[in-house]
């Protein structure tokens, strides 16, 4: 009964989405405010309906209702409750429902925080989101219904893939989807601007916080996925350039470009057409990412083609969304206008360079991800594009972009002078070069990449310091602290995000340069030493988990004659599918991680064991969190608060500074 209610709620949601997608947009076109007024209640109703459906599926999982095909396929009666609930997004159908649910959450948020928007704009935005929702609901109801019954009911479920039975997997997909789907708001804003033919600085100011928030979610989502891969796959790697990862990284690159391009549209009214194109791109890549990962096309192109209905629907949906929005773009973009002129060396010019580099990087990832799929689909042979390709493309493309992080925020809008910039940046440059040369020698090894990484990281930190000092000099106020407080939050947010990148670079550089790994055979009582840490293996014991049995190893870690940690890596066998899983043990530290994973049992209680010493690895994820935090701080800036606009006499510090720089 409950699953049928969920199914029925989805059908109703589809009807509401159709109404929401058609009437308000038509109303905005003909200027009928009654039709436009439909958007808000329709979006809220749709949210409640999809919430109901989601709740019903959650109930089916909690209730172990194996008469629902999807529940039987992805859970098991032995599976603990929290993983049963996480299993909702453990496979294709449920992921689509989660996607749609999050889309309606964003819609609901738009209805709450759009009171200051013009009616036509709001109804167009909600209308476009309604149309996207129509696509997903149709897809679910026609070919991937999560509520499909299994008659007779299965006596026992097939269980969730053990790799996904992990706290990281409980939060990672919703975070990622909050990011993916969040770009639908930016997309809807862009299409609304195209439909209305009106794109001004106010438009950019409205859509900026939405885009930034989506970008923050996506950043955290990707970081969590990377962290999950690190501790769950047992290989100690944090990024594999796997198609699944690339699928989430491409919208991030486009979204990062969008965040920067929106800044220009907001502050200077420039880049309008480009901003709209990036918004379309970011959302299209989010759709592509969702389908790449969840349609099965990656595991096998041919398996994907053997379910032609699903594959055709996906291709048609992508074609309609991407093709349709690009068509609208080609038709209406000339009306939007280009925006003001600026010189090559100016903040606009540098941000444009950043955008070109980010989009080029995105294109290279797209090529490396899709090309093998195309070849395979056309039966031209099987190839794979490995990490060396991405590494050798990314370093040269990102190096200039990272260098520009230091220059861009200090350059004036419209026209900057090179001698002036060079003068302001010379100390930062000197410090960076000195560190890049001296530090590797102090650490004992030198490689070009090590120096480059340190150079860029220190460059970003030191230019941030220069930036803050100059800002404080410009802000009015008594005393240093008061003036620091006068610097707008959006500026702090930007600095924080940029420093996050620097922290990230430090992590990547140090791990690449100094990590040690060793595969060894260890007898009970034997020791092995890496990175100055001695690992003593004290044998394994059998332990029982809720739905698995495990061999748990004990390792005592000794440094300088003192025991610093005890680690318990496990080799688990999940009973439902008789599947073996390695559960690595990690001793996390600020400056290094120790990582132990069990290989295979050998004779006499000996095991093959993999040991890692990974300096600074946690800085990688710390950097990502700082980036996201920077986004949050930027969004909290008062210039985005609607109330502020009602007091025109208050000029924010940023605008004052901008006008001074123009003068």
């Amino acid at each position: 009964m409950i699953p049928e209610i969920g199914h029925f709620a989805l059908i109703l949601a589809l009807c509401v989405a159709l109404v929401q997608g058609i009437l308000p947009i038509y109303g905005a076109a003909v200027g009928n405010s009654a039709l436009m007024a439909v958007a808000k209640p329709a979006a809220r109703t749709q949210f409640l309906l999809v919430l109901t459906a989601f709740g019903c599926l959650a109930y089916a999982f909690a209730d172990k209702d194996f008469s629902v095909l999807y529940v039987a396929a992805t859970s098991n009666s032995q599976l603990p409750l929290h993983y049963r609930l996480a299993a909702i997004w453990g496979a294709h159908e449920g992921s689509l429902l989660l996607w749609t649910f999050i889309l309606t959450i964003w819609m609901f948020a738009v209805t709450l925080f759009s009171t200051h928007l013009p009616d036509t704009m709001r109804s167009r935005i909600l209308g476009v989101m309604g149309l996207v929702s129509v696509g997903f609901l149709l897809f679910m109801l026609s070919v991937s219904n999560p509520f499909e019954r299994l008659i007779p009911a299965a006596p026992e479920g097939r269980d969730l893939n053990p790799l996904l039975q992990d706290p990281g997997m409980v939060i990672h997909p919703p975070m990622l989807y909050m990011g993916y789907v969040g770009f639908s708001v930016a997309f809807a804003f862009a299409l609304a601007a195209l439909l209305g033919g009106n794109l001004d600085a106010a438009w950019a100011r409205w859509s900026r916080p939405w885009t930034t928030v989506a970008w923050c979610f996506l950043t955290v989502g990707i970081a969590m996925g990377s962290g999950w891969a690190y501790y769950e796959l047992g290989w100690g790697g944090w990024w594999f350039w796997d198609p699944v990862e690339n699928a989430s990284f491409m919208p991030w690159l486009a979204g990062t470009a969008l965040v920067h391009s929106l800044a220009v549209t907001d502050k200077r009214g420039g880049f309008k057409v480009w901003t709209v194109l990036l918004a379309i791109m970011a959302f299209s890549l989010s759709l592509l990412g969702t389908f790449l990962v969840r349609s099965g096309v990656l595991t096998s192109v041919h398996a994907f083609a053997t379910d032609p209905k699903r594959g055709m629907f996906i291709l048609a949906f992508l074609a309609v969304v991407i093709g349709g929005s690009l068509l609208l773009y080609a038709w209406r973009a000339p009306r939007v206008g280009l925006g003001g002129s600026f010189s090559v060396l100016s903040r606009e010019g540098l941000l444009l360079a950043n955008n070109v580099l980010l989009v080029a990087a995105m294109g290279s990832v797209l090529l490396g991800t899709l090309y093998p799929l195309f070849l395979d689909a056309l039966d031209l042979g099987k190839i794979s594009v490995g990490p060396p390709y991405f590494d050798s493309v990314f370093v040269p493309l990102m190096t200039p972009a990272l260098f520009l992080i230091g220059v861009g925020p200090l350059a004036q809008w419209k026209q900057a002078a090179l001698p002036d910039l060079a003068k302001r940046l010379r100390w930062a440059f000197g410090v960076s070069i000195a560190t890049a040369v001296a530090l590797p020698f102090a650490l004992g090894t030198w490689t070009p990449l090590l120096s480059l990484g340190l150079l860029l990281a220190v460059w970003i930190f030191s230019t941030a310091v220069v930036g803050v000092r100059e800002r404080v000099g410009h802000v009015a106020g008594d005393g240093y602290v008061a003036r620091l407080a006068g610097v707008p939050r959006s500026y702090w947010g930007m600095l924080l995000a940029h420093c996050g990148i620097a922290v990230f670079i430090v992590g990547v550089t140090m791990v690449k340069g100094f990590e040690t790994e060793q595969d060894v055979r260890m007898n009970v009582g034997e020791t092995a030493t890496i990175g100055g840490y001695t690992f003593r293996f004290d044998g394994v014991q059998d332990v029982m988990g809720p739905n698995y049995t495990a061999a748990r190893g004990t390792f005592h870690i000794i440094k300088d004659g003192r025991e610093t940690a005890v680690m318990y890596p496990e080799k688990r066998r999940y009973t439902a599918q008789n599947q073996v899983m390695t559960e690595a043990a990690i001793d996390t530290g600020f400056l290094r991680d120790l990582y132990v994973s069990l290989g295979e049992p050998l004779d006499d209680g000996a095991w093959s064991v993999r040991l890692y010493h990974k300096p600074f690895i946690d800085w990688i994820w710390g950097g990502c969190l700082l980036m996201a935090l920077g986004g949050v701080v930027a969004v909290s800036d008062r210039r985005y608060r609607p109330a502020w606009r009602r007091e025109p006499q208050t000029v924010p510090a940023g605008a004052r500074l901008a006008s001074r720089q123009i003068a």
Partner: protein
Amino acid sequence: MTSRQKRFAFIGLGLVVLGVATVLVLNAFQKNLVFFFTPTMVANGEAPKGQSFRIGGMVEDGSLKRENDGLTVHFVVTDTAKSVPVTYKGILPDLFKEGKGAVAQGQLAADGTFVASEVLAKHDENYMPPEAAEAMAKAKKAKASGAQSSNTLVIQTQ
């Protein structure tokens, strides 16, 4: 500079950046493509020498041998028609098993052994990695069509 010249300067700069990026990408792409070969193709000498590639198929039953160091392993990958001996030093993935599918990346040594730098097994218990499944299917097809062509040959001689 007039605004017209300025625009040209922008377009020129953009094209240069894109051009450099394209050259980088295509160059790296060419160098780092990893091709996939079935054991039959390797046995026919189609696989490149001194270059990294992937092979896939089934791990032959009873072929897994472990050296005394506990880390170096030898096994045989087959597509049922032909097989290739593989050597790997390191810890095998959780899902690696005799009689199951596996994909390995590495180079062919002079003695015809495939020296793997990486063994992949991104699949669940009952599921074959797609490359391995395809290798087996190809060999099966080749066998069937081979049998057929010899039949036609026989018919022709008669």
